[in-house]
């Protein structure tokens, strides 16, 4: 979808994908959270959709969508929590690189690719929620380590699971709508 002249900044499609992505992730984060029992930590389908979006449109869309969607969700609760917002933005950015791995628009989606994608998402989750977000809480907000690591580890596990299941299913469903002719030759 790249045009020759629109090389400066984001492409039109990236702008729209970011805008619509923020709106959907916000709605999912804000109105469909499933509590885990640990305060401020929920099973988050927003992250699953974010991952799916980033896997199609790349790191810039992923990072921006994650940043603003998390910011708006926090603002709508009256309280921006910057360490987690930044961690989320980084997660969206990192997971965006799975676009190069999956190449879902050009190539067939294989099991091997999905496994690699899931390894990448678990690593990104551990890095962002298990390490960066708690460290940010300790450095910026000076909260006790035990509490923030409990929240961080819970978020890592629930996000990895939500993304592993839901985002993978979304990718498979989306893959089927692309390259239909190649799909027919399978098996």
């Amino acid at each position, binding site marked *: 979808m790249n045009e020759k*002249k*629109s090389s*400066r*900044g*984001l*492409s*039109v*499609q*990236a*702008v*729209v*994908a*970011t*805008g*619509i*992505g*923020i*709106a*959907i992730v*916000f*709605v*999912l984060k804000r*109105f*469909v959270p*499933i509590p885990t029992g640990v*305060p*401020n930590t929920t*099973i988050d*389908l927003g992250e*699953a*959709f974010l991952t*799916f979006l980033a896997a199609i449109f790349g790191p810039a869309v992923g990072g*921006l969508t994650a940043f*603003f*969607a998390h910011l*708006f969700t926090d*603002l*709508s*609760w*009256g*309280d*921006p929590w*910057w360490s987690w917002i930044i961690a989320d933005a980084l997660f969206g950015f990192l997971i965006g690189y799975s676009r190069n791995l999956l190449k879902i628009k050009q190539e067939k989606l294989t099991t091997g690719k999905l496994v690699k994608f899931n390894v990448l998402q678990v690593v990104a989750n551990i890095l962002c929620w298990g390490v960066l977000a708690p460290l940010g809480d300790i450095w*910026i*907000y*000076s*909260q*006790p*380590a*035990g*509490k923030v690591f*409990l929240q961080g580890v819970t978020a890592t596990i629930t996000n990895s699971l*939500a993304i592993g*299941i*839901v985002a993978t*299913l*979304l990718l498979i*469903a*989306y893959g089927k*709508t692309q390259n239909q002719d190649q799909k027919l030759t399978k098996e």
Partner: protein
Amino acid sequence: MPTKLKTDPKPIAGSQQRAPWINRLSGTTKIVILLGLSAIGMVSYDTRYLVLLTAFAFIFYAAARLKWRQVRGLVYAIIGFTLLNLVLVYVFSPHYGAEIYGSSHVLFGSGFFVVTTEELFYLLNMTLKYIFIVPLILAFLYTTDPSELAAGMNRIKIPYKICYAVELSLRYIPDFMREFKQISLAQQARGLEISKKAGIWQRVKGSSQILLPLVFSSLDRIEVTTRAMRLRRFGTQKKRTWYMSHPLAKLDYGLIFFTVVLIVLGIALFQVNGGRYYNPFN
């Protein structure tokens, strides 16, 4: 949980033309105040300073003339969150306050869960950090127009394509809320249980089944909107103008100046206190 909000897109995208001066504030001013105070309040642990910031935030809240009915649900939710966090922090490290302030005045209890004045003081500071910005945000949520926000973001040199994406998202949030509700009701009518009555696994499964139609309609919408914007030659120029952009007034400059003064004061207090914490126990 603020049930009312679920059907009401107003808190995010609504602008009510009632409050006098706060509605005249430019989007730029609001962003600068919000980001500035949020950043300095995030770092500072000085009780006096946080109280001052809270008072400043309440000026905006008062100006927005919100009805208690409008914010009630959110306020209860915030109180709930904050209490849960306080309990968790205390349970995990009852000695954290003593560690920070370097002294320990036992109030009552003994053993691991001993209650010290330092811990209570630390928890008070943490509560202030949780809530000081809430009145400000509530005021801005109800008095800011999405387009004005985008214009304001662009003025502080955020690339216009990002501002436009944000504006698009604010435009689409009410749409997707409606669509989500419709799909959810349709699926529930077909026997899908996603309410609190179902178990976690059921709810995850049910919610994903709502997700699928929502995702594919959104991908379609991305295609359609992209085509429409390309036809209108979006993104071919270096700059763009905003209908809702208007020059900063005296009031804007005054408030931005005051915010800068507050931030400088906060930084000066780091010097005075010899760190982020204000320690009354020395």
